[in-house]
């Protein structure tokens, strides 16, 4: 029987390099691809600047590893798809006073969907990445499980993947720790063994998203002007510098002085205000969720489960209640700074059973 083929997404970092090598160890035939997603251009000179995304170094790293392992490598241009599905949504969400999670959208709409189409073009069975999460293939369905490295687990970022796409996904790093990955890369002499961790948004240089928004849509951002900072009673207590400069739960840099710290509780683009509150008022006992993606049968009326409202947060037991067109999530432990636009992800023990986008709780 001929070997099963895998298309491996290679960022040029250590994780995807090791993922490729592990798949080869397991006997798969692999092809490496690097997706060109974004060019960080200076808006005035149009010269490409350095960013974390698709640097020449990163692409060369991926090519060197593929060459060492005897694997074909191609660079594929998905810049249009990335702009449309990730960057445009990112900008739109900020203008709506929300805090988007572009990595989630990039995974589902760019990486998985586009890679699978590419796999079909190549006549390839599976796709693979270097994410720290596991895929469990069962007879009729496939499930995402948390990665063995609890500090590194990235399943939260993958909730929006189409369940059918998951059936053709292999995640070889789910069972090992980051430390093991580095050790393996070193022992195999992979050129990318020492690449630094990537932490920031890949397309926003220096993590300065405010500057990024100004560059990508200067006209719209010109309309984002200073406005009122209010307390919960509606009293004006200060002036903000433009609502896109704030996120829910932010404490530092609000620019108001109170004996007790204040946090950003709400962002209201409609009347160009932000609302601040004391920490004790920042807890919510429920929220709503939209764009739900279920890997199990969706709840018909009510379901008791466990949810995380941000990457690496502790989470809480919840009940998911189906209401008209939406889902209401009741937290058994009130949650701090529930942020519209972020992801809420549901788990049964280690199994990711679904997720959605957090909507305002009032």
């Amino acid at each position, binding site marked *: 029987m001929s070997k099963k083929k895998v298309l491996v997404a290679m960022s040029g970092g250590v994780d995807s390099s090791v993922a490729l090598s592990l798949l080869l160890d397991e006997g798969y035939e692999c092809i490496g691809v690097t997706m*060109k997603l974004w060019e960080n251009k200076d808006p005035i000179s149009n010269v490409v600047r350095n960013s974390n995304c698709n640097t020449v170094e990163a692409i060369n790293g991926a090519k060197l590893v593929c060459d060492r392992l005897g694997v074909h490598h191609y*660079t594929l*241009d998905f810049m249009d798809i990335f702009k449309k599905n990730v960057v445009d949504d990112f900008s739109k969400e900020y203008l709506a006073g929300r805090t988007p999670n572009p990595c989630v959208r990039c995974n589902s709409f760019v990486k998985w969907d586009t890679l699978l189409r590419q796999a079909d073009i*190549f*006549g390839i069975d599976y796709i693979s990445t270097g994410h720290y999460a596991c895929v469990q293939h069962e007879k009729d369905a496939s499930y995402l499980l948390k990665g063995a490295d609890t500090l590194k687990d990235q399943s939260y970022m993958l909730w929006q993947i189409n369940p059918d796409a998951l059936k053709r996904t292999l995640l070889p790093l789910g069972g090992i720790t980051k430390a093991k990955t580095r050790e393996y890369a070193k022992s195999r002499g992979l050129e990318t063994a020492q690449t630094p961790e990537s932490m920031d948004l890949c397309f926003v240089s220096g993590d300065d998203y405010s500057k990024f928004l100004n560059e990508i849509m200067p006209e719209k951002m010109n309309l984002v002007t200073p406005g009122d900072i209010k307390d919960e009673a509606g009293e004006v207590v200060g002036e903000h510098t433009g609502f896109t400069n704030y996120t829910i739960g932010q404490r530092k840099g609000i620019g108001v002085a109170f004996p007790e710290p204040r946090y950003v509780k709400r962002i209201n683009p409609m009347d160009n205000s932000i609302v601040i509150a004391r920490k004790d008022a920042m807890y919510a006992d429920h929220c709503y969720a939209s764009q739900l993606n279920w890997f199990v049968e969706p709840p018909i009326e009510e379901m008791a489960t466990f949810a995380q409202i941000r990457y690496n947060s502790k989470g809480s037991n919840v009940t998911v209640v189906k209401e008209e067109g939406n889902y209401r999530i009741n937290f058994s432990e009130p949650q701090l700074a529930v942020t519209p636009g972020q992801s809420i992800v549901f788990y049964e023990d280690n199994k990711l059973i679904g997720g959605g986008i957090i909507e305002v709780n009032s």
Partner: protein
Amino acid sequence: MKKIYFDIAATTPVDPKVATLMSHVMTQTFGNPSSIHKFGQESHSVIERARLQLANALYCEPGEIIFTGGGSESNNLVLQGILKSGDHIITSAYEHPAILNVVEALKVKGVEATLINPNKNGVVDCNDVISAIQSNTKLISIMAVNNELGTINPLAKLSEISVENNILFHTDAVQMFGKLPIDLSEIHIDFLSMSAHKLYGPKGVGALYIRQGNKLPAILHGGGQENDLRPGTENIPGIAGFGLAAQLATEKMVTNIKNILELEKRFLSALTEKDIEFTRHCNSHIPGLMNISFHHVQSKPLLMNLDMMGVAISAGSACTSGTLKASKVVLQLGVSEKLASESVRISLGKLHSNDDVDYIIQKITELIPRLQKTSEINV
């Protein structure tokens, strides 16, 4: 896995005879050609022998040849050397970036440029050149053979136009040299750029023909090598390899052309026999270079799938690949965006056999129905 290379227009493997000579020169002839002693004299002779070989291939004087680091460098020497602020150049819109980007850089310095689009047959029309002439036109630079299409430009006629109008004439002959005869005793060309790696010679070596009487200023400064135009100790093994490659290409040109044309015919008639729908762009080309659009099959998926089967072809020129966009050069022919995005370049050379051609035919026949299906899904 069997690996076959059908991208001869991008670069060629080094001819084994050339490699043997180069290896011998590299290990045995290491003297500095500028040195007075015997070691230096031997190295010097290697270079002069190669110069003679190139002069014989082009029907020109050895003193009219200088060795450079490649075709791009030769082009730069001419364009940067000739054109000053206020001067005008006529060139074509489908030149290699080694011309187009030099022109762009010169425009910043005040040089005027007219870029002529090829006609629908992929050839520069002489009348377009004539109408573009201005009182400040200093140089006409038109490539001899287009690298993506393989079409041949009318060098003799272009040379006449330049002589009549007292304008200097340069041609980037990188794709022609070694594949078709060039007789510089017959055609008045002022400057002609060449590269060794397109004719089974080494990479990193080129040459520039400078007609006697023409003067060029240096753009790099240093020792007086290569008539002051290419300072730096010479790449002796590379130059030796280029010389022999040029000699072999000239000696075997008639046989090579005949064999390659037969292979081309075998390839094209097999496609027709297998009922594969395709368009071959332009109707006159150098032997072996085929720019073909396979209907309803995007070029990049075809290229990559063939590559995974060990068969190398190209889409667009090697220097601009990387994105799934229609070839700019093919678009200039006035064909639809779809047809242009389906165009691939398959180039055959002297080392190919009937078996090689049968192999790529077999692979293309296998792939095309599947790729036509996925292209429907992805539209």
